[in-house]
């Protein structure tokens, strides 16, 4: 099986256990990373398909209304109501807080708790295949990576690593697309972490009840090399 055949088959069945697929995956780190991307997309896809079945809020669903038979003299009042409604909706829309980077990071990490269970260090090829598309490298031996995958995050594919530290595993998201002005702390749902500016974009580091985060952040920051 060559790379093209592999990608055709994986594109239709990302979780395929076909012998030829498994064999090619073991031999080609780039195709293995591609399969991991598709598997990550399928996880997101499965969650996306499971829509909430809570009854829609009243007024949330807009059905085509029957032709109005309201007398003309009431049009003015209707128009005034409409303008007020639009103004209220616009005010709510503008003032509605966008999801913060911290909440996005926690949301992403909490959906992949199994990533922290990986214990075997990954080889340079496997890590490189995940980092290379984003123009990022890790310095040899600077950190021990036990999980590496490309994930959807804020409409971008980003490297998602799990790095083993003396204080336990931490998740590292390398966010080349996201600039931050200064270091910010993440705290919520038992997760603690930091987001720090990087030469290109930012780095999010999150652990569960992990101590010594500043030292870990420094270690990770110094381990990552960016193509600027």
């Amino acid at each position, binding site marked *: 099986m060559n790379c093209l055949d592999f*990608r*055709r*088959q994986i*594109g*239709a*069945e*990302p979780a395929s256990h076909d012998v030829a697929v498994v064999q090619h995956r073991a031999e080609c780190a*780039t195709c293995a990373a*591609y399969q991991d*991307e*598709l598997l990550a*997309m*399928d996880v*997101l*896809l*499965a*969650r*996306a*398909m*499971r*829509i*909430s*079945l809570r009854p*829609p*809020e009243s007024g*949330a*669903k*807009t*059905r085509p209304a029957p032709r109005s038979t309201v007398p003309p003299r009431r049009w003015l009042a209707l128009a005034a109501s409409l303008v007020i409604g639009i103004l209220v909706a616009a005010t709510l829309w503008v003032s509605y807080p966008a*999801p913060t980077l911290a*909440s*996005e990071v926690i*949301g*992403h990490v909490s*959906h992949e708790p199994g990533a922290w269970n990986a214990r075997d260090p990954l080889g340079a090829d496997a890590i490189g295949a995940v980092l290379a*598309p*984003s123009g990022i490298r890790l310095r040899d031996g600077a950190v021990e990576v036990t999980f590496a995958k490309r994930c*959807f*995050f*804020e*409409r*971008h*594919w980003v490297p998602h690593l799990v790095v083993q530290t003396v204080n336990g595993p931490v998740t590292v998201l390398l966010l080349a*697309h996201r600039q931050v002005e200064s270091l910010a702390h993440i705290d919520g749902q038992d997760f603690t972490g930091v987001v720090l500016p990087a030469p290109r974009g930012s780095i999010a580091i999150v652990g569960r009840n992990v101590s010594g985060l500043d030292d870990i952040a420094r270690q990770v920051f110094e381990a990552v090399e960016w193509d600027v």
Partner: protein
Amino acid sequence: MLPAPARYRFAVFERALAGPEINPPKARSLYMNSDDRGTDRQRRFGALCEALRPDLIRFAFWLARDRALAEDVVQEALLRAWKSFDALTDEAKAKQWMLTIVRREHARTWERKRLETVNLDALVQAEAPVLASDDDAALAEMREALFRLDDDYREPLVLQVMMGYTTNEIAAHLGLTQGAVLTRLFRARHKLRTAMAVDGTENEA
């Protein structure tokens, strides 16, 4: 007020779902009389409905791309399923059986209502509350991308990812060859990847 035939159909359906509350379950017996058999039938059907209804509605939603229409389709499909429940000999295949009924009911509804071609942007806007996700922007993005996929690509993908169908089962369900199903699944994922990736150059291998 519903017309008389519709009232009758809803009464039948209500009774079918309500089974155990209306008729307390009796001890099973080899000498079960017709009332007992009826009660047992209602109980089994009620249990199946309770277990399968959420996934049936989700499936219907991704077919119809309309939450209210999905509820209607599933309601009608369950009525039909109740009427032909005796034809289901293996309850392990109930999910597949009901999905087929939902799919046919959706096609019937589509034909009956002669639904007009709709503006996709307007459709997305109308279903925004269903597609939204409070805490995960990627989830909402994916829902919209899936929502905008052509029916030919969306349905096999839903059957595979949400319902856990194999490509063989999808082929049988949709009346296609397995090769056609594989092609549709490949293209569906390719379209989703393209839709989701803002800077697609880094993702295309």
